[in-house]
């Protein structure tokens, strides 16, 4: 039976061939629209990635990353400063208390000295009276009266000076002691608060640094993922070249079938075999069309997923980086200011402490000079005592009063010697106190704390860099937001291209169904009627023009009646093989 060219099956296949030709023309435009849309998306995504990369680079820059170690160093130096300060301040209190006790002893000495001065003055008067009474005999004792008078005046003057200085010092020390006693708990409290706040600021800075590092990287990861998806769609679009060839070969196959149908032999076996080959050929075309449909469905799904993911991109975390860094900078600046303020307060105290220490050193010098003078006086007194006793003994009973005076001088000399020793003792103790306190005075030296100063300078420098980084991040984040908005605005265009693509290839469904339905109408044999020889012939007939492995696999599946081969997973594209 020759199948007439005008038969239903023939017309069906003719329509199918024409339908595919029309689809191919439309598909080029649809694919070009998708390609164009994704090219634009790729450009814009690259732009977003570039900006995100700049933010990552900014956050990872050594000048920003070094902020935390600098602040930690500042915290450490501040802690050491605070502790040394507290210890030194307690030491100062001890020094002041000890000095106060020494001053009290000096006061006692000066009182005793005053008493001796008065007594000596009285002795001088008595001596003058006795000298006058003795007349010519008493001439030799006039010097004694003079000596006693001079001695009395000298001691009185020296004692007055020492007493005055001692009182001034005592008054000054009382003030210092009161201030330091009241101030120490306040200082301790303030220091403890500063330490706690600094600790808090450090923790926040550390957490913020971690957050800073995480956010842009995460964002970059998300956008990178989308860039990868876009690249996948772009690669898939390239795959249209395969589907285009597949469709062209289906057209060729249908034309070949139509030609075969026209030339079917009248002999039953030949006709049956020919019909089986035609049916197999049709099945192959149906499989190829299914393969194209599956590919296009996958593209459409990929494009849809990519669009959705683009719409889901949010830049809020990246946008928050600039303000977060600025906040960190403000917080750290505030801590820095507190430390600087603390240093200023400490400097005021330091000046007072240095003055107190200088006062102690002056006192030591004064007492030292006093002890020297006291020793001189002691020696003179001893000489005076000796001479007066000798002279008195020469005069015998006439000089009994002088002798009595001499005995008084001797007693005074003894008392004075004791006072001298006690003064020397006080001087020694003052010296020891000065030595003991000198080491602690380093803390209050005018040069300031080297380590803290350096840490502050480095932190200030770091904060400047942080501020610059924050401004940079904020400006880039604003650009990122704008870039994402532009990217998301393109999604509509891409979705329209996707729908156009889908609509274009939807025609395949109708074409395929028509072809599938037609063998029943024409009552052709099923492919099970193919012999092994027919298999090979059919394969050779229809695969002659095939250029891809995909088509050959689909053909083989069609001939075996197996499932469609897995779609090319070439989302990332193939690599270059160099000869």
């Amino acid at each position, binding site marked *: 039976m020759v199948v007439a060219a005008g038969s239903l099956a023939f017309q069906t296949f003719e329509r199918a061939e024409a339908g595919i030709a029309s689809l191919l023309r439309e598909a080029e435009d649809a694919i070009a629209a998708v390609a164009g849309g994704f090219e634009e998306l790729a450009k814009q995504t690259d732009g977003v990635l570039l900006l995100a990369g700049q933010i990552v680079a900014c956050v990872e820059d050594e000048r920003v990353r070094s902020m935390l170690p600098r602040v930690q160093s500042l915290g450490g130096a501040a802690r050491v400063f605070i502790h040394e300060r507290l210890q030194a301040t307690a030491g100062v209190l001890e020094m002041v208390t000890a000095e106060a006790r020494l001053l009290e002893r000096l006061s006692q000495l000066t009182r005793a000295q005053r008493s001796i001065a008065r007594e000596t003055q009285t002795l001088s008067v008595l001596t003058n009276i006795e000298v006058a009474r003795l007349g010519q005999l008493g001439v030799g004792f006039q010097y004694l009266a003079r000596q006693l008078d001079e001695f009395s005046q000298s001691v009185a003057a020296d004692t007055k000076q020492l007493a005055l200085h001692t009182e001034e010092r005592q008054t000054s020390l009382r003030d210092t002691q009161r201030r330091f006693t009241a101030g120490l708990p306040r200082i301790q409290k303030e220091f403890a608060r500063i330490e706690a706040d600094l600790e808090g600021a450090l923790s926040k800075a550390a957490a913020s640094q971690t957050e800073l590092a995480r956010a842009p990287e995460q964002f970059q990861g998300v956008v990178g993922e989308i860039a990868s998806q876009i690249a996948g769609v772009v690669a898939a679009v*390239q795959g249209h*070249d395969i589907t285009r060839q597949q469709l062209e070969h289906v057209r060729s196959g249908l034309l070949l079938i139509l030609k075969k149908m026209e030339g079917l032999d009248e002999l039953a076996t030949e006709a049956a075999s020919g019909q089986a080959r035609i049916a197999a050929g049709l099945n192959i075309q149906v499989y190829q069309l299914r393969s194209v449909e599956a590919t296009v469905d996958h593209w459409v799904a990929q494009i849809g997923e990519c669009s959705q993911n683009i719409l889901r991109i949010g830049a809020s975390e990246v946008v928050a980086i600039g303000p977060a860094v600025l906040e960190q900078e403000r917080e750290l600046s505030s801590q820095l200011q507190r430390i600087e303020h603390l240093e200023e307060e400490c400097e005021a105290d330091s000046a007072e402490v240095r003055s107190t220490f200088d006062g102690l050193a002056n006192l030591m010098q004064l007492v030292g000079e006093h002890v020297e003078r006291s020793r001189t006086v002691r020696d003179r007194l001893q000489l005076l005592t000796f001479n007066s006793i000798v002279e008195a003994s020469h005069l015998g009973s006439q000089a009994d009063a002088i002798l009595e005076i001499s005995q008084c001088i001797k007693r005074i000399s003894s008392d004075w010697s004791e006072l001298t020793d006690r003064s020397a003792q006080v001087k020694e103790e003052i010296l020891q106190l000065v030595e003991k306190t000198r080491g602690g005075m380093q803390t209050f030296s005018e040069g300031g704390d080297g380590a803290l100063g350096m840490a502050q300078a480095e932190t200030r420098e770091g904060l400047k860099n942080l501020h610059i980084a924050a401004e940079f991040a904020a400006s880039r984040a604003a650009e990122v937001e704008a870039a994402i908005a532009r990217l998301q605005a393109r999604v509509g265009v891409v979705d329209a291209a996707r729908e156009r693509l889908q609509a274009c290839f939807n025609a395949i469904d109708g074409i395929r169904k028509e072809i599938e339905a037609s063998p029943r109408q024409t009552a052709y044999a099923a492919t099970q009627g193919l012999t092994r020889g027919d298999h090979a012939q059919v394969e050779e007939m229809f695969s002659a023009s095939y250029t891809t492995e995909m088509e050959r696999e689909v053909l083989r599946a069609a001939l075996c009646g197996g499932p469609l081969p897995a779609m090319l997973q070439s989302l990332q594209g193939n690599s270059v093989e160099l000869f």
Partner: protein
Amino acid sequence: MKQILTVDDSASIRQMVSFTLTKTGYVVTEAVDGRDGLSQCGRQKFDLIITDLNMPNLDGIQMIAAIRKLPGYAFTPILMLTTESQVEKKDAGRKAGATGWIVKPFNADQLIAVVLKLVK
């Protein structure tokens, strides 16, 4: 700037190649088939050619063989970008003078890396 010629009868493939390489800084010229490609090579010197295999008028292998005879093109790198993956086709391409073979679709990053290496 380095000049690249892309030869393919598929507009979308030419578009993809052009887009991939233009953003890397190359100047890309398009040709619609083998004859057009050969004609372009006669008019100007390209630093690299990327061509399809199955094209109307003059296929890729014939075009490569003809280009190799043009002055200045003896060592110009030529990459075949095709759906074909059979060994016989690759051998034919290599004999004609192809420098490399890419089965469609191409991996953009890889293509850029190879082009950077071939076109210095």
